[in-house]
């Protein structure tokens, strides 16, 4: 999910977004506070976290990122880093660095199938991720707006000449991208701790997934996600604790070095 959002933003606007993890953190906190203060079910809060993150995304694009669409790539990277520094430390200021857990009774059960433990929230998250990705895929393939987004992503000048409103497409793409991570945040909140810096953990993984699947390649992001997920769990069986993160970085560097266009990427540009 995180990777899908990232790849959408990258594919359309060719910007590597560091602030992605921060948006995910915002999604997690939305769910957390809604549950804690109003007792709203974590999955119901998707209805709020998705639109609010969409709006935040569009506003970020409108007022900050649109200013530097033509700047060199490293400046765009730095800008998203600045955004992420700002959001994360604002969160730190407002909500303290404490680690919080979302305690929902009916979600704490885990079912055992044979010898495999299956945690309930993870299954739900997985199903939702597939559902939302399918919806997004349908949107991009079939609707006019979706086609416009894909057109801009593939051929910027061409899209301009046929009269596509570039700015609107950018707003939309960035909004959808952040909405995706918002949803991912909500879905992750029931089985992961919530903390202002939590996004960083996921965003690095997401970068790996995106690079693995080929930047801007949509199906690739999903497949890449599966591969990294597998590598992580297989790795965790062999090596202890934090080292499994190492494997992700290792894959990342290897892919960057030898196959920068991604495993499923088309080489011709």
């Amino acid at each position: 999910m995180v990777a899908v959002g990232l790849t959408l933003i990258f594919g359309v606007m060719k910007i590597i977004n560091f602030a992605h993890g921060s948006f995910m953190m915002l999604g997690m906190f939305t769910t957390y506070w809604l549950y804690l203060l109003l007792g709203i079910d974590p999955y119901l809060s998707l209805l709020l976290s998705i639109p609010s993150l969409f709006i935040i995304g569009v506003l970020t694009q409108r007022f900050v990122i649109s200013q530097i669409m033509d700047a060199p790539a490293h400046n765009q990277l730095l800008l998203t880093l600045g955004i992420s520094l700002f959001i994360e430390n604002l969160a730190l200021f407002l909500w303290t660095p404490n680690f919080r857990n979302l305690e929902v009774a009916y979600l704490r059960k885990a079912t055992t199938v044979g010898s495999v433990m299956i945690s309930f929230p993870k299954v739900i998250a997985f199903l939702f991720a597939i559902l939302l990705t399918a919806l997004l895929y349908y949107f991009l393939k079939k609707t006019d707006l979706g086609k416009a987004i894909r057109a801009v992503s593939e051929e910027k000048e061409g899209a301009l000449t046929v009269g596509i409103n570039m700015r609107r497409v950018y707003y939309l793409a960035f909004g959808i991208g952040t909405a995706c991570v918002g949803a991912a945040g909500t879905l992750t909140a029931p089985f992961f701790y919530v903390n202002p810096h939590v996004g960083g953990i996921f965003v690095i993984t997401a970068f790996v997934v995106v690079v693995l699947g080929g930047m801007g390649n949509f199906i690739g992001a999903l497949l890449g996600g599966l591969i990294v997920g597998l590598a992580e769990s297989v790795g965790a069986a062999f090596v202890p604790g934090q080292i499994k993160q190492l494997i992700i970085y290792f894959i990342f560097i290897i892919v960057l070095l030898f196959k920068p266009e991604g495993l499923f990427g088309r080489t011709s540009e």
Partner: protein
Amino acid sequence: MNSKNWMSGKILAMVLVGALLLILPHFIGGYFIYVITMIFFYGYLGMAWNILGGYAGQFSFGHAAFFGVGAFTSTLLQIHGGVNPWIGMILAGMAGLLLGLFIGYLCFRYGIRGPYFALAMLAFAEMLRLLAMEWMTLRYPLGISIPLKGDSFLDFQFRSKIPYYYICLLMMGAVIYLSHFIEGRKIGSYFKAIRENEDAAEALGINAFRYKLVAMAISSFLTAIGGTFYAQYYLIVEEESVFGPTISIAVLLGPIIGGAGTVLGPVLGGGILEGLSEITRNLLGAYSGVHLMIYGAILISVIIFLPHGILGGLQTAFQKLSKW
């Protein structure tokens, strides 16, 4: 003003500022000595980053890799091998340089450029941080403390903070000189040519691969030496503080804000950031995130309004004025 007068004016200004900084510690209190030392320190690190990131245009998001290797090398050699920290500092620089050449060879050989290079550096730094973390929890769960030896120049330990001030001033001065030297020579032009357009530079016969490695070597060597200074200043080494992404970001913010690819930009940027962080720390105390929030806001506005940093912006303003 003709160029000779201009040059001698510049030298005179440098000498005056230098002399002022030399006598300054005798007039200000310990707190200000600490703040100014930190400004020198981040200025130094920023300039080290600037040689690779500013002049040669290879943005690194993982300079913590070299910084951490520097801090760990000298500290471990000192504790386990009894190696003098001054010698350790040189060895740390060499270790950083070797790592820099290794990473640089891999990245530049396989043509990793622009944002991908930044991400690859980040990945290398994070790998080292995780390895160090795993190793430290087994061996030094509380961080590695350098044994206290009292006031001794040979042991690179001082009760007063003033000697650290002078060492840092010297380090910064040396790198200012080095940056100035690079800027005036052919190698500086090569770096800039690679930054502006690597393919065009190659077409003109510049061996981009070699010069990027040279920039990487200088930058990693200097950054690792900074790591040793940090270890000797705080006398404790923890993997989070030397390998963490915070260092990588702190190192590049100064040059970006002050002006990447200029000699004094990193010092200016480092000074502004360090000053701001001290002010917010004094005003707001416990809320530790606020200064980083402000950093973020400054970074965003500088990138939007002054894409070449404060000094870069001033230069263009002056050029416009002189055209009038």
